[in-house]
């Protein structure tokens, strides 16, 4: 087991290294460099005319005149050694200050979404498989089709619309206005929980649809096994039987796709965040791209990917623990 964990950790490190290179290339893609944008941001509207020499001076000061490889190692070295993600230009502070506690909010959204996804999809998937061919199963199939077809951000818009219409409530955002900048307290935490469910449900939407289908399919296969028939013949109560034989195995594909779900959730987060007015990580990423604030964008992309890679790792370990048939180290 230890060897298995170590191997996965090394694999994780290699993947992250390659990802960081890709992220760095993306950060370098926009035309012009930071010196241009920095000079423009600093002096635009002030009437000071900026010469090429000034820009060059800024370039040297920021170390942007170095070749790309050197800058990459500066950047990645800063992250690994000092936890320094560089400068956020639009905010005139360091990236760490900008992102800071938003990482925790993102994790809060992520885990709420994951919990909602599995709490809904696993029992419903089992139910649909057991009642295969019934009206309920048929309805669920249609629902899961819709879950894949209706994009989350449109669902968010529709929910906002109806909330506005029926309850005349503004349900966007993650905090009520009085808690927005308040220090953390129990009341603020409660406020967060009250606001968290909507983005979580919206984000869980397609993951639930997908996992219901997976769960239903594998559960249907498992239900046909002889072990189930044998257990039924022994007189094992139906509820216990379901959980003990088919469900235990049918859950494996769901566990193995945790990383995939996290990926999907993060993929949809920026756009859902824009619609729901969540100023947290997702929308920050969107704004960073629109402003070409590439150090912020790069840091967020890297962090999101790291969380996904880490969840992949967790799912591998969970799977190895759940399913002894998986050969460790193979």
């Amino acid at each position: 087991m230890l060897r298995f964990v170590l191997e996965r950790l090394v694999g994780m490190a290699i993947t992250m290294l390659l990802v960081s290179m890709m992220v760095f290339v993306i950060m370098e893609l926009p035309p012009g460099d930071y010196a241009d944008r920095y000079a423009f941001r600093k002096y635009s509207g002030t009437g000071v005319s900026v010469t090429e020499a000034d820009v060059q001076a800024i370039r040297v000061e920021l170390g942007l005149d170095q070749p790309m490889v050197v800058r990459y190692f500066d950047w990645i070295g800063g992250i690994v050694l000092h936890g320094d993600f560089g400068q956020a230009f639009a905010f005139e502070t360091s990236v760490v200050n900008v992102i800071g506690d938003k990482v925790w909010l993102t994790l809060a959204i992520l885990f709420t979404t994951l919990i909602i996804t599995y709490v809904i999809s696993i029992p419903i998937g089992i139910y649909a498989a057991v009642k295969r061919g019934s009206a309920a199963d048929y309805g669920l199939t249609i629902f899961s089709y819709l879950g894949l077809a209706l994009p989350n951000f449109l669902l968010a818009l529709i929910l906002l619309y109806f909330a506005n219409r029926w309850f005349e409530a503004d349900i966007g955002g993650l905090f009520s206005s009085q808690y927005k900048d308040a220090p953390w307290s129990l009341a603020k935490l409660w406020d967060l929980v009250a606001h968290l469910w909507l983005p979580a449900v919206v984000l869980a939407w397609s993951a639930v649809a997908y996992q219901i289908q997976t769960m239903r399919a594998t559960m249907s296969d498992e239900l046909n096994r002889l072990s189930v028939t044998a257990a039924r013949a022994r007189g094992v109560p139906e509820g216990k039987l379901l959980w003990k034989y088919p469900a235990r195995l049918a859950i494996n594909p769901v566990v193995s796709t945790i990383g995939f779900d996290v990926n999907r959730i993060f993929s949809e987060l920026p756009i859902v965040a824009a619609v729901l007015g969540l100023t947290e990580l997702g929308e920050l990423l969107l704004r960073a791209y629109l402003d070409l604030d590439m150090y912020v964008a790069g840091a967020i992309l890297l962090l999101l990917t790291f969380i996904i890679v880490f969840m992949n790792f967790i799912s591998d370990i969970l799977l190895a623990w759940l399913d002894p048939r998986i050969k460790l180290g193979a």
Partner: protein
Amino acid sequence: MSDVTPDKLNTADERERQKRLKYYSASQWTLIWWRFRRHRTAMIASAILGLMALMGVFAEFVAPYGPTTRDARYLDGPPQIPMFCDQNGCSWQPFVHGVTTQRDPVTLRSVSVPDPESRIYVVLFPAGEDVELLGFIPTNRHLFGLDDPDAKLHIWGTDSLGRDVFSRTVYATRTSLSIGVLGVLISFVLALMIGGVAGYAGGMTDNVIQRGTEVVRVVPIIPLYMGLSAAMPKEWSTTQVYFTMTLILGLFGWPTLARRIRSQLLSIRGEDYVVAARLAGARPSRIIGHHMLPSFTGFIIVDLVISFPYMILAETALSFVGLGLRPPTVSWGVLLQEAQSVRVIEQTPWLFIPAAFVVVAVLAFTVIGDGLRDAADPYSEAR
């Protein structure tokens, strides 16, 4: 020794035999088509999608007006639904009421008010704007419109600039579907090359390629697309943006298909007929293309169909937040950009109509994919 002639045997038994013979001698594709035809929902979905595609191809003809043509007399106007009856009686030909502009007594803004006394009839193939069908057939005929050339028919209403939502949706259908087609094609070619090399070579090459695939798969895709499209210079023309977008979508859409191709190739690499081809001196590209791929073309097509929705959804999402196609290009996402806030949806809900197109198109592709998967599976008959 038997003297039965064929026409004597022309019984139910013989017909059954003929049917069996036809079945056993049918080609792989005929069989797939037969099985697919039995899948009713998938057939309906294909029809809907075919209709959408036709709409996109003949957008100039189907849309009564151009995507940016403005009707200053009808801003933010609600849909005009052709009717057969009003308080002045009925007619066989559908008509709409004319629109007059009045000043709102409170806000003093000019508002469009339907005039219930006037009737403008809806006709097929009226003369309208000059367009070039398919880019080279000049015509001024459109599918439908009003017989009064000065009045405009907005069956799905207009946006804040007075542009016809129906016409814009028709043109958007062309953009969104074509971006999906091009994106899928690009990613298919990439998947074929990457998956082909990995699966055929195996060993170390395969390991390295697997690592690379893993990297592309693990980064959240929409934020990645956002990063790439944010890098497009602001001064680029709409055509440049359009082709770059298809390239971006295609460039990162290959991993799933590449993995499928790789694992299929790996599993049949040791088959005798592949070895035989190799010993006969065939080049790798011929062995892959001619001997190995045909054994799972069906599955590849299924995967291609299933990857369409992801392209369409990604394009819609990116354009929706302003990081994809840019106006004056119209795509479903660009159109939905105007319907971004709750206030807009409350006041002008018809701007949300393009969302239905997204949902229907994605649903159709998914259903067709499911139908094809069942049809392409040679063992589904046995069950």
